């Protein structure tokens, strides 16, 4: 394995994207160096900045892993966005129903829960539920591909629309306080909350929403690595991704691997719910994802579909995401959507340079 080559081409892609992005900035009438400084210069200056950057990196690691697992099996999961929405709602639902959630409805205290479980049971339950929900939403296009051969890209996109509409329906009609202008569920029970990192690090302000979900994300990187490269199932999955017909000939069930890969992929995407619902907002909030499911594609590609690369790529994109707001405020003409443009160009360049990496 040539490490130099593994790192070189992603770097070339990023540089090229910044050149093209810089040209766009010039055309728009701003100074690209000022814009890029705002974009990357606000991420590591203080504990506060670092906390926020890693907080943004957390969902990106999960979705990056999700996309990478599917990629390794030769599938493009554009459905992480829908999977994480469904998972976040389910996590909130469990947190409400089993967490003894008491809701203030026009000054009257109502108990919306069935039971009130202690944290030690409730938190794992919420996590399992969110993973299961994401896995289920991912398994659907996997099954459709395996059974009917219908393309996972179209199906995952359709399921994104359906998933978002579905949870928005349940939120609006059943789990929102009547009259609340914001599309969000009521708060989960306090026992469902997971600890924030600021509790353990003196000097980090407690409003920084970085939670232990970040540590879980790192753990998942390790587990995905072990799964893909140290287990038989992972080997078979990669074999399908390398050459499906050869794998089939070698006695591997391609259909089983496709369903499995999409299920795992969906489950990983669903883990976004842990940091967002249990660690940050403490409720399901309509539109909470800043396109993380789609960004996961950029993260996975830039990270060469390897867990270690994904951590680095996720932090890189988190830096850009964090810089977004400063670009909006500090520059004259450029808006924060420049980051979306940069992401898209990076994906395009990584894909276009792929053939050189194989030589």
């Amino acid at each position: 394995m040539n490490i130099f080559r593994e790192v070189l081409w992603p770097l070339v892609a990023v540089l090229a994207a910044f050149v093209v992005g810089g040209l766009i900035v010039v055309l728009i009438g701003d100074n690209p160096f000022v814009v890029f400084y705002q974009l990357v210069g606000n991420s590591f200056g203080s504990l506060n900045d670092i906390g926020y950057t890693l907080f943004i990196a957390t969902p990106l690691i999960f979705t990056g892993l999700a996309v990478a697992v599917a990629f390794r099996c030769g599938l493009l999961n554009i459905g992480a966005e829908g999977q994480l929405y469904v998972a976040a709602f389910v996590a909130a639902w469990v947190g409400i129903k089993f967490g003894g959630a008491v809701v203030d409805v026009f000054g009257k205290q109502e108990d919306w829960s069935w039971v009130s479980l202690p944290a030690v049971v409730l938190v794992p339950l919420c996590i399992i539920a969110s993973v299961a929900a994401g896995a289920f939403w991912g398994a659907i296009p996997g099954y459709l591909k395996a059974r009917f051969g219908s393309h996972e890209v179209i199906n995952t996109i359709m399921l994104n629309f359906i998933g978002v509409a579905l949870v928005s329906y349940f939120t609006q009609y059943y789990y929102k306080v009547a009259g609340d202008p914001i599309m969000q569920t009521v708060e989960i029970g306090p026992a469902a909350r997971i600890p924030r990192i600021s509790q353990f690090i003196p000097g980090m302000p407690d409003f920084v929403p970085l939670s232990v979900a970040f540590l879980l994300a790192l753990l998942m990187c390790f587990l995905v690595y072990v799964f893909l490269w140290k287990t038989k199932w992972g080997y078979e999955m990669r074999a399908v991704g390398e050459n499906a017909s050869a794998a089939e000939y070698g006695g591997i069930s391609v259909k089983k691997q496709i369903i499995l890969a999409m299920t795992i992929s969906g489950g990983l995407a669903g883990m976004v719910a842990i940091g967002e619902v249990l660690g940050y907002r403490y409720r399901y909030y309509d539109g909470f994802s800043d396109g993380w499911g789609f960004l996961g594609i950029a993260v996975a590609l830039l990270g060469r579909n390897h867990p270690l690369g994904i951590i680095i790529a996720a932090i890189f994109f988190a830096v850009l995401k964090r810089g977004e707001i400063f670009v909006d405020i500090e520059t004259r003409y450029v808006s924060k959507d420049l980051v979306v443009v940069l992401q898209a160009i990076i994906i395009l360049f990584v894909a276009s340079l792929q053939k050189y990496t194989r030589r």
Partner: protein
Amino acid sequence: MSELLTPTFILILIFSTIRTATPLIFAALGGLFSERSGVINIALEGLMLAGAFTAAVVTYELNDPYIGFLAGLLAGAALGFVYAVAVIKFEADQVVAGFAISFLMIGLPAVISARIYDSAGSTQQIAKEFLLPDFYNRINVASILAFLLVPVCWYVLYKTPFGLRLRAVGENPAAADAAGVSVIRLRYMAVIISGILAAAGGAYLSIGQSSLFTRAMTAGRGYIALAALILAKWKPVPVLFACLFFGFTEALSIQLQGVIKMPSGEDIPVQFIQMIPYLLTIIVLAGFIGLSRAPKALGIPYRKES
């Protein structure tokens, strides 16, 4: 239910179907050219957005929908060229690169409209008299163009040397190459045509059906057009019927809003109505894909043996 089947309702439904099918027909015909030449076109969504945005801006600035429409087509051709370079010259994974193009068109219009109109969400509202006109207040001029394009595309694909070569390149590029056809050049042309047609669908959305561009306004229509193309087995006339079918479901879902009730007497929640076209796409795709055969060389980059 019976009170729904009045002549007026049926007439409204027919016109509404023509409206909703129009962008799908343009985009699916675009996809047809690209995919029959062997290039997968997940980029349709982005190509549509390029057309929609450019047409809205130019029409607003110049107060002429026809120039705006043409400008939209040009933008589609340009973006189609970018996509073609990535997947033909650099042999990028067609699904990934196509997604990147679509994703780019979420961000780029927002950056530009934030600069020129101080609003990242949408462009300026175009006055009604400067939109693509409707005939008898019912059928848009772009819809007529879309329907006319179906026989034109059929003719080009099956009755011209260009069409013959295009199909040959998509089925067996090596044989086409041996017969003296430039595979690479033909694929470039096919993808650029694809960009132009998809952009026409997008332009219709922003300056025909609507009166401004809004972020990601295609709402998955590029992908639905792709599903229609598969359902139509990559053939132009069936493409028309597949698009009318998907258009019909969208029209029906719009017209039924607030009309039919749940057994409890309440309105059906809007979310379920919105889901119908997407759900149907999945079902149709699963039900029909086995019956349809893709062009043989679809998705495989061509490299001349040397």
